[in-house]
């Protein structure tokens, strides 16, 4: 049985079993999975879930570690849009035919969340007749598939992936992506060499340390030293090289970074050990050198892994554009790949499709949803000579338009570029570790030099070895591990809660945040239209009005119509007809009903009044000659908003709301939630100036937005959040992206950032405290090399263990 009370914040009965989104009140869709009926939020999720269970792949749901992405509503284009990939010319750009006549294709997948997805995809791809091999790479979100072209088509594979709820695209290998793979493999190679070397040298070192304690014959000691030498040399040359390179590069620029003490410790300890081996005197530190290299490389590799996991290859605005476009060529409408579009060609954008490119309307009128640019969920009406932009959604009616520019010059591409720019211009706080490194290394070098000087007076023959033991024992391993280990731990823990961490540096800023600024009201509202008000114009009861509206809206494809899906619909309608761009008309008991725009209703009921003045999305409803009601749709405040605002205040954060909207909606919202500071009618420039002024006053500003159209403002904030529904993930750019849109995670992230900061401080405290105790002992010549090696490893392990606490 399900333990419903186990997680009090989210009742699993209320969320879709497939995608985790909340379920509309009156929707009753469920799919039998694992012998129980699981609720589904929409037919799209149900279709995917049914497909998965009917293929015998229920195991997927038991194994996955994150909810799936909500699939797009299937529309008319789903079946045909992938047919373009059967065009050999286009297919050649991402496929390759091998000697046996099989086709090898690489496909980029949107919506992959966890390893279970890779299993699901591999299993269901292998079930397609003709597919020889399917292999998913989670890191790159890439599917490599091999199939016989006689038995199945590329479009079959794309369609099947789409039916599973993923968004397939041809994988175009870019230089950046190849570079990332290359660097990752290089890091792994260095790590592997250091690990194997550590085991070998460690074995010899145990014998040497044991020999130091209970005595060892000189010839065996020499043997063990001489065999350690080549192994350690190879590790230093192959694995530790990046430390030397980085340290040297920064030193030439006059800056002291963490890699400098690391390189010094490795280099000096190695050289001294070589000298000891050759001269047959003193101590060897080969094991410390190699272990140190391995631990540091391991920490950096894990950090890199955690960071890269968030940089999905499909996080690109261009990927939200359709791959196939209907274009007029030689007087005929043909479907071509979007990449082949030429400027000045005429394209057709059907209702419900995404506009593929910036274009000027030459025929038809419709409304486009431009929430990608302005966060506005109410569509903008467009007619002849208006410009529609790539990435916006054509909501109502087919448009014929002329292509204005290439994708690269489109508004969407410009927006993407401004995001990248904003991110690079962001004032980055110097990493704490590097700041500490500056004086730490100076201190170490000073102490080492002093020790050597003093011992030169007392016992010159021992001076080198004592000075060296100071350097090894003060080995900055723990210090170098302190930050990456904690940041990786925090990022992993946040990921499990649905918060994607893009900029780990921002965790530090977030922990010191003083101001929490909400950019536009959209971040505090649900972002979908919901019913807010019914203004009756006749005698009908509210309930009947809604039943009629719901019945008629079933036949509409307009985005507003989805709002009505949750209401019980009157059943006795016939001859219902959807008139694109106007509304719906239907017949009931010999009366004609209409729902839709003002003009549309007025045709049937000439005395239909104008809508009330409040800025809302108004829909008219009338019967032949009789106005019935105005129905207002609105973007509702998120239910958890008030609680989150309260929690933020308890954490000592000052709250503010900036909005570009000049209506009184913003102030009303701020007042009801208790936000003190509110600025309306702000242009993006004003917002940026306001944030900069705050920062100049010493404030650390955290900005919450929706991640794309407000990206420049988010970029200058010290830390930024994007609140996004799962399907908007690809477009959201911020330091933290809250997927699933649960504002509670905002507070959870702030708390986690503070925990992370505390753990980093504890780590530094421990590393420094350990050095303060150990260095004087080493300087007095009291620490034998085996104790130095053990002390160093233990202090590193403790730092890692402490950071692991952040996983909870």
């Amino acid at each position, binding site marked *: 049985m399900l333990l419903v009370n186990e997680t009090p914040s989210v009742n699993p009965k209320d969320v879709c079993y497939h995608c985790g989104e909340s379920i509309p009140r009156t929707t009753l869709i469920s799919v039998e999975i694992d012998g129980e009926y699981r609720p589904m939020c929409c037919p799209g999720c149900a279709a995917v879930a049914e497909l998965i269970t009917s*293929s*015998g*792949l229920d*195991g997927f749901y*038991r*194994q996955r570690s994150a909810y799936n992405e909500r699939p797009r509503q299937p529309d008319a284009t789903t079946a045909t849009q992938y047919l373009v990939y059967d065009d050999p010319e286009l297919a050649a750009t991402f496929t390759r035919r091998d000697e046996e006549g099989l086709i*090898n294709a690489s496909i980029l997948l949107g919506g992959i969340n*966890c*390893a*279970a997805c*890779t*299993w699901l995809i591999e*299993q269901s791809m*292998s*079930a397609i*007749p003709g597919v020889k*091999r399917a*292999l*998913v*790479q*989670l*890191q*790159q979100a890439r599917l*490599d598939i091999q199939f016989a072209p006689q038995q199945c088509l590329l479009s079959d594979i794309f369609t099947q992936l789409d039916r599973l709820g993923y968004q397939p695209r041809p994988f175009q290998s870019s230089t950046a992506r190849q570079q990332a*793979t290359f660097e*990752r*493999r290089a890091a*792994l*190679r260095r790590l*592997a*060499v250091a690990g*194997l*070397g550590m085991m*070998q040298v460690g*074995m*010899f070192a145990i014998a040497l340390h044991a020999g130091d304690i209970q005595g060892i014959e000189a010839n*065996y000691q020499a*043997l*063990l030293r001489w*065999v350690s030498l*080549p*192994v350690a040399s190879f590790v230093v040359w192959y694995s530790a090289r990046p430390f030397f390179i980085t340290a040297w590069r920064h030193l030439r620029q006059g800056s002291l970074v963490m890699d400098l003490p690391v390189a010094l410790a490795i280099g000096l300890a190695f050289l001294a050990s070589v000298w000891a081996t050759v001269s047959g005197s003193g101590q060897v530190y080969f094991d410390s050198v190699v272990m140190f290299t391995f631990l540091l490389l391991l920490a950096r590799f894990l950090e890199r*892994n955690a960071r890269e*996991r968030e940089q999905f290859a499909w996080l690109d605005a261009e990927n939200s554009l359709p791959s196939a476009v209907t274009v007029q060529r030689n007087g005929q409408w043909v479907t071509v790949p979007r990449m082949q579009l030429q400027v000045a060609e005429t394209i057709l954008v059907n209702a419900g499709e995404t506009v593929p490119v910036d274009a000027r309307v030459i025929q038809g009128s419709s409304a486009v949803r431009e929430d990608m640019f302005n966060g506005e969920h109410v569509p903008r009406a467009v007619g002849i000579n208006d410009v529609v932009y790539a990435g916006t959604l054509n909501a109502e009616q087919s448009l014929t338009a002329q292509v204005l520019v290439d994708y690269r010059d489109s508004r969407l591409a410009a927006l993407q570029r401004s995001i990248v720019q904003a991110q690079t211009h962001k004032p980055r706080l110097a990493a704490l570790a590097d700041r500490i490194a500056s004086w730490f290394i100076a201190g170490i070098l000073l102490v080492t030099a002093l020790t050597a000087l003093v011992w030169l007076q007392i016992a010159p023959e021992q001076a080198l070895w004592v000075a060296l033991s100071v350097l090894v024992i003060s080995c900055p391993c723990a210090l170098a591990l302190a930050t990456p280990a904690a940041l990786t731990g925090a990022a992993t823990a946040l990921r499990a809660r649905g918060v994607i961490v893009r900029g780990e540096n921002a965790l530090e800023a977030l922990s010191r945040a003083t101001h929490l600024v909400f950019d536009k009201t959209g971040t505090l509202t649900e972002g979908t239209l919901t019913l807010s008000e019914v203004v009756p114009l006749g005698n009908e009861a509210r309930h009947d009005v809604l039943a009629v509206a719901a019945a008629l809206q079933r036949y509409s494809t307009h985005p507003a119509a989805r709002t009505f899906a949750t209401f019980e619909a009157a059943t006795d309608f016939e001859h219902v007809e959807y008139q694109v761009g106007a509304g719906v008309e239907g017949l009931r008991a010999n009366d004609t009903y209409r729902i839709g725009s003002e003009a549309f209703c007025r045709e049937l009921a000439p005395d239909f009044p104008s809508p009330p003045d409040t800025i809302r999305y108004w829909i008219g409803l009338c019967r032949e000659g009789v106005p019935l009601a105005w129905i207002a749709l609105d973007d509702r405040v998120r239910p958890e908003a008030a609680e989150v605002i309260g929690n933020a205040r308890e954490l000592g954060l000052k709250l503010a709301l900036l909005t570009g909207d000049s209506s009184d909606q913003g102030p009303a919202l701020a007042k009801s939630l208790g936000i003190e500071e509110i600025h309306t009618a702000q242009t993006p420039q004003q917002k940026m100036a306001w944030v900069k002024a705050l920062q100049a006053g010493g404030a650390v500003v955290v900005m919450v937005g929706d991640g794309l159209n407000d990206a420049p403002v988010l970029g200058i904030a010290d830390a930024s959040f994007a609140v996004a529904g799962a399907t908007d993930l690809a477009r959201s750019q911020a330091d933290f992206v809250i997927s699933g849109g649960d504002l509670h995670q905002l507070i959870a992230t702030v708390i986690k950032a503070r925990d992370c900061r505390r753990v980093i401080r504890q780590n530094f405290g421990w590393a420094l405290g350990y050095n303060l105790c150990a260095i004087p002992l080493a300087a007095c010549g009291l620490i034998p090399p085996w104790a130095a090696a053990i002390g160093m490893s233990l202090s590193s392990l403790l730092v890692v263990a402490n950071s692991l606490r952040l996983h909870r």
Partner: protein
Amino acid sequence: MDSLYLLIPIALIFCVIAIKLLLWAISSGQYDDLDKEAWRILAEDEPEKTPNATRDTPASRDDPQHD
């Protein structure tokens, strides 16, 4: 104890072979996706297949795909 003079070099030769193998495996892309392999070992058995779908076992599917 004189056997050390023989055994330790042999151990080193094994170490060199192990490093070579590992570097080759990394270069051929077998370690590109660490998350999935870690998960797959715990995954349940594959579902029953339709007779026409003859497939390799997961182990041999790990063959490098880049040449």
